[in-house]
């Protein structure tokens, strides 16, 4: 574990004084002010709930963390009103190129936004600390949000209807009786370890050197990935642009290395020069060595304690599925917890968070494990097969889709969800229940900006009572994307997931589906 003094400071927040009372009650305590905890706080606060966050450190840390944020996360942040700030600061990209050996042309290239005409780009690259800073500034506008910097969880006692959390700050200690505790305290989650909960999975025996460097120069904002390049023979490498002229360089190093030695500048810089040219001018931003794990908790909901983000699941970074997976958790959880907090949904609704967030985590772990296995084949036959894919891909199109340099994060389909109402008509194209609504142009704006934060109906020509209707008949693109025939309708959840759809809807069908999606019937 890193020593505190080694964590670089991006933005000092200052230690928050201890509360006046040694024991206080609150509806929601969020542990961890990373991107996931902050996003959850913003979503719950905008829905009118009082939230408190405790964060162990009293600053936003710098260093090499998440940089790639996928369209789905941008859509979620768009709904929360911070999307424009994040996209505005970030580097937009949608093309990935894969190189092999010393061949100057890519052997494979992919476009991450095959469906055009959507508000948000496929990806933006932006340092995690910028995202956190933007979220912190947005939260400052809410007087129902209390962020406590430099407050760490010591212990937690879990009861039937709440948990008592022992918090320490400086010399002071206090207790919080929270109806709900949301643990977003990262891979080494104090809440998880204190509760003695499992965290099973695979550890990959490989080391990766991350060199974040500052340099000016004109290179495309694309993701460039190399297998077996001359500058890192037998291993892989990655080059990716971030804002502020910062570039992320990633070098696979193999297993049996001296990690402390390998991250010393005199050992890192030859790699940088080998990749970018001996005369490249650059400054060190941050150098570090990572190993990867793919693991998750068996359950994410433990009574009144709910886990989200890295605290609940870990993946390798190839595919940008770590932080994006955590933002998906936030999106899935908040409207449900809000319904429960307002007494409009049963506590059992949160079980659907457990089901859907685990489905997301499993998909992310599957893709991430496969990418890592492709990059670090385990034995001679696997190496031969991987090399055969690369070799054939350089010559023939058929092998190119098998080249796996990371399958980048896309929205996960909740194929099996207790909240979905199955199709009664068999002739649908479009988006099936459990899939996230696809964006598209609507009335001079965008669908996802207009669909709102409550249940909504997408209709074509017919109006229904009881909730917001968005008539898509003015947008042929959207009617095609949803396969929305005249008279048909889609019920969209508050997290913009399809709950049900009908060719011939009526008030009763729609209400029954809304109740199911609110956990009121099963």
């Amino acid at each position, binding site marked *: 574990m890193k020593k505190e003094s080694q964590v670089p400071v991006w933005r000092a927040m200052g230690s928050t004084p201890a509360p006046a009372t040694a024991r206080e009650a609150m509806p929601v305590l969020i542990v961890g002010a990373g991107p996931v905890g902050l996003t959850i706080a913003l979503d719950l606060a905008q829905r009118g709930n009082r939230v408190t966050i405790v964060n162990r450190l009293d600053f936003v840390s710098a260093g090499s963390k998440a940089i790639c944020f996928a369209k789905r996360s941008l859509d979620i942040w768009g709904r929360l009103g911070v999307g424009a700030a994040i996209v505005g600061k970030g580097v937009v990209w949608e093309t990935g190129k894969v190189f092999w050996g010393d061949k100057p042309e890519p052997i494979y290239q992919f476009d991450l936004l095959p469906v055009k005409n959507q508000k948000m780009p496929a990806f933006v690259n932006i340092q995690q600390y910028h995202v956190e800073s933007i979220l912190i500034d947005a939260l400052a506008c809410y007087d129902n949000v209390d962020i406590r910097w430099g407050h760490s969880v010591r212990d937690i006692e879990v009861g039937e209807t709440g948990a008592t959390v022992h918090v320490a700050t400086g010399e002071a200690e206090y207790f919080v009786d929270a109806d709900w505790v949301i643990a977003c305290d990262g891979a080494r989650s104090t809440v998880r370890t204190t509760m003695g909960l499992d965290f099973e999975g695979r550890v990959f025996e490989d080391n990766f050197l991350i060199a974040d460097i500052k340099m000016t120069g004109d290179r495309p904002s694309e993701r460039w990935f190399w297998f077996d390049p001359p500058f890192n023979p037998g291993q892989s490498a990655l080059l990716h642009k971030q804002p502020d002229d910062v570039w992320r360089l990633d070098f696979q190093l193999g297993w049996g290395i001296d990690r402390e030695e390998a991250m010393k500048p005199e050992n890192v810089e030859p790699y940088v020069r080998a990749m970018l040219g001996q005369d490249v001018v650059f400054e060190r931003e941050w150098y570090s060595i990572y190993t990867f794990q793919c693991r998750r908790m068996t359950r994410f909901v433990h009574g009144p304690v709910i886990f989200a983000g890295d605290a609940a699941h870990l993946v390798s970074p190839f595919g940008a599925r770590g932080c994006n997976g955590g933002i998906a958790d936030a999106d899935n959880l908040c409207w449900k917890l809000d319904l429960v907090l307002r007494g409009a949904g049963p506590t059992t609704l949160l079980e659907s968070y457990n089901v859907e967030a685990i489905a997301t985590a499993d998909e992310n772990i599957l893709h991430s494990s496969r990418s890592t296995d492709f990059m670090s084949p385990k034995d*001679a*036959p696997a*190496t*031969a*097969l991987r*090399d*055969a894919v690369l*070799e*054939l891909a350089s010559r023939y199109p058929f*092998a190119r889709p098998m080249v796996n340099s990371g399958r980048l994060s896309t929205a996960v389909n909740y194929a099996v969800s207790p909240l979905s109402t199955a199709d009664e008509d068999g002739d649908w194209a479009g988006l099936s229940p459990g899939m996230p609504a696809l964006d598209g142009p609507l009335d001079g704006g965008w669908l996802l900006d207009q669909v709102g934060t409550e249940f909504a109906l997408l209709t074509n020509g017919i109006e229904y009572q009881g909730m917001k209707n968005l008539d898509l008949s003015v947008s042929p693109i959207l009617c095609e994307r949803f396969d929305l025939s005249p008279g048909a309708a889609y019920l969209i959840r508050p997290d913009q997931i399809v709950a049900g759809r009908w060719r011939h809807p009526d008030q009763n069908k729609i209400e029954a589906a809304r109740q199911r999606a609110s956990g009121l019937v099963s």
Partner: protein
Amino acid sequence: MSRIKLEPNIDRPDDLYAQIVGLTSGLDETHAFARQARLILLLANQIGDVDVITQLIRLAAQRDELGQKLADSEAF
């Protein structure tokens, strides 16, 4: 699900066998693996039907487990 073929389906079996052996003859393991891997990928794409290939993969693995069981029983 498509049926996999387990009856003879090749005109000149000896010629084909000789060609497959010839693909790797005289090579060390690394180079032999490389050629076999390329052949597997080319054949898989030629078949194209993932259901069929999945059945064939299972069959190939099953034969191996059977062989292992036989070897185990012989040890006693």
